[in-house]
Structure formats: C-alpha cells, structure tokens
C-alpha cells in the first residue's frame, strides 16, 4: 500500500505491506536506527517516536496507520550537530548507561515537556512510566529531565 509520511521534516513516499510495523519501517526502510526495539509487546518504550507531536510506541503500530502524518524520531531532535537540550542534559546528568532505552526516554520526555514545561518529580516519574530502563535506576534520568526543563541555555526550546 502506498503511504506518504513526513519523517523528521522530510516527506517520504513509500510502498509498504500493511503488516509492516512502523518501527521496522523507520529502522529497516528509512535506516533511522536510533529508534530501538526492546520487548516488541508494547511494554518497554524503547521504540517511542512522536506521531503528530504525541509520544507513541512504534512497535504497536503499522506503518500504514501513520499515512499522511508527521513522525519525529530521535534523529529529528538535534539541529545538525547542535544537540537538543534533553540530549545535552542526559549527557551532563549521566542519564544513560548502556543507552538502549535512551532514545525512547528522550522522545517521551520531549512530549512530556511539550505539554508541561516545568513538571514536578512525580509528574516526570508518572510521565516516563511507560519506558523501562534496566541500568540507571531512573534517578539520573529524572535529574536529566529536570535539568532540561529548567535549563534552556544548552539548546533550543
């Protein structure tokens, strides 16, 4: 089936089988491998992308469902070499260890901050509760998000 999507600001026309998962379309067809697959069963959030600005789990969507819509992946957050303030904050606060969950964590955080510029710790904990991290114990991730929400020097809004 023919679909037309906008990915990270670029229009893409493609012919996909209806059963192709959005995450595989992004990784295998578009070669944007920053979006990860962890559980493949809607639980871990490693596959999180923004669909029309809203965070969703791309392992639980077919690419055809994204027809005529806008997708933002982790690759679309930075502006060239200039990192998004969330990316800088994760580096500064040690918000990652192995990094597997990180793209999903950051996409969820971007959505969270787009709705709530200054979330409380509890709002952050609830907000990222659909994203699992096996390494950090979450505290450094929460600090990273707090830093990004209060510190806008490092990047664009």
């Amino acid at each position, binding site marked *: *089936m023919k679909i037309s999507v906008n990915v990270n600001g670029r229009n893409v026309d493609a012919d996909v*089988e*209806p*059963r192709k*998962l959005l995450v595989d379309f992004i990784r295998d067809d578009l070669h944007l491998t920053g979006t990860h697959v962890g559980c*493949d*069963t*809607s639980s871990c*959030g490693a596959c*999180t992308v923004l669909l029309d600005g*809203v*965070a*969703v*789990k791309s392992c*639980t*969507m*077919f690419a*055809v*469902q994204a*027809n005529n819509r806008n997708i933002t992946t982790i690759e679309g957050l930075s502006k060239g070499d200039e990192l998004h303030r969330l990316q800088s904050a994760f580096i500064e606060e040690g918000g990652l260890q192995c990094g597997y969950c990180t793209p999903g964590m950051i996409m*969820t955080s971007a959505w969270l901050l787009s709705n709530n510029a200054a979330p409380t710790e509890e709002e952050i904990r*609830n*907000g990222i*509760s*659909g*994203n699992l991290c096996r390494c950090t114990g979450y505290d450094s991730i929460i600090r990273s998000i707090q830093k990004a929400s209060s510190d806008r020097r490092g990047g664009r809004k």
Partner: protein
Amino acid sequence: MYPPSFDYAAPDDLDEAIKLFELHNDNAKIMTGGVGLINAMKHHIIRPGFLIDISRIRELSLIGDHGGYLSIGATVKVAELQRSDLVKRNYTAISEAAGAIADPLLRNMISVGGNVCTGNPDDDLPPVFLSMDAQYILAGRNGRRVIDADGFYLGHMSTAIRPGEILVEVRVPRQAERSGSAYIKRELRQNDHLVAGVAASISLEEDGRYKRLAFGLSGSGNTSIHARLPGAKFTGSRPIDVPVGDIAKMVVEEASPLSDRQGSASYKRKVILALAREALTLALQRAEQGGQK
C-alpha cells in the same frame, strides 16, 4: 514477531466502513487504536484477513455534552478522556479509569472503542460505564441499535456485539445534582496487571439520603461486573446510618475473582472489600461537596 498478511483500509466515512465490514465480515476486524489487535496478531492468536481502521472517521472522535448525556465517540483516545475537563468535573470515575489504563504512551494509542469492545474483564472503562448506566450505540447494515452496557458483557472476551456491527458511541446519562463517583484500581506495582478495580457511582436526595448506589468491578471474575444489589438495598437510608463497610461487604458478594499470579481468590476478595470502601467513601465525599452536575 510478525502478524500474517492482511488487507487494510482506513475509510474516513462511517457508511463506507459499514459497507466494507459487511463485505468482508467473515474475516475482517474493526481497528481503532490497534494496541489489542496488533499484540494478538503478532502472537498469531487472531489472523484477520482485513483490518478496517476507523480512526480517521471524524464523527467518531468527539467528546460532547448533549444535555441529557455525555457522548464519547468510539475512537476517542483514553488519554483525551482522562484529560477532558468536562469528564473530570462531572464524570470523575471515567477520568480516573481512563488514567488507570496502561501507561501514558499507550493511553495516547488505546481508544474507548477498543477498551469497551474487547470484553476483557480486567479492562478499566467497562466497570465505570456499568456503574453509570451507560449505553452503547452500535451501527450496522440495518441502522443503529442502542444497548445497555449492562447487557453487553456476556462472558470472558464475549460481548453482545453482532457480526457487522461497529460501536460508534458511548452515552453516559447526565449525573444528577448531588452525585459523585470514583474508580480505584489496585496493582502490585505500577503498570502491572491489576489485582482488582472498583467503580462507585452514587447520588443523594436533597436531604442527603442515598438515592442511587451502583458499583462496577474489574478483575473480579469472568466478565466486568455491575453490582447493583447494594444500591437497591440502601436506597433511602442516610449515609451516616449505614457503615460504608456494610455496603462494601455486599459488593464483594457479587465478585467471583479467580486465583492467578496477582493473588489468590481470597486475597482478591479482601482487596475488593478495601477498594469498595475507598471508592464509596470518595464518591460520597464528592457528592456531598455538591459534586458532579
């Protein structure tokens, strides 16, 4: 994990969807959010040959106050239901149940239609709709039919929806002047499978006596349960004369929870008792504060 091949259509018109569904009825499925379907298809539990994605039909995506009732379109995302000020203010338990579903990302994907039509006794919205005497509007080849949520849930994963029918809307009667509601769900840890959930929906007479009391239960048996019995029994009493615990005990009698990884049946009964007390106490507070309109 890949689902078997299928054909896909995403009509933006309801009549078109109904026609397609009729044409492919033997092996088509309606898809709204896709979360339930895609997981079941990945595990090859179901193998539909045709998916009719109704999420682009505009008229099904609205939440509105229609005077006598709250109208919720079938494709409304549960995140939207959770956030809606109208729902929060006047139908608090619906907002609480929507917010209890899965996690924030899945709430952006899961729709009211999927949650209501699956017939899973563990799903969060059905018990609230039961406790509020909601009605489901089904559309099919022969027009529309209205069915009470109360008659909709027949058994585990089994509902009264007929072949070719699409749920288009949930209608919740306007809550009376002095009414209040609450939904509380217990999980062992956040986003884990539930142990049980209880919805309480009450209204009071002008002089403060119970006018209506109804409960809905999730995780408490083979199907979502509407516990009406205590309502009839205590109508006309003053809340201060009837211990909340007595009412909660009668709610538990309606439940037949199953022993599983979340706990034994007897443990779950204790949980349901505690939740029924909590939910009723909260609903009562809300009603007494003038509560929902």
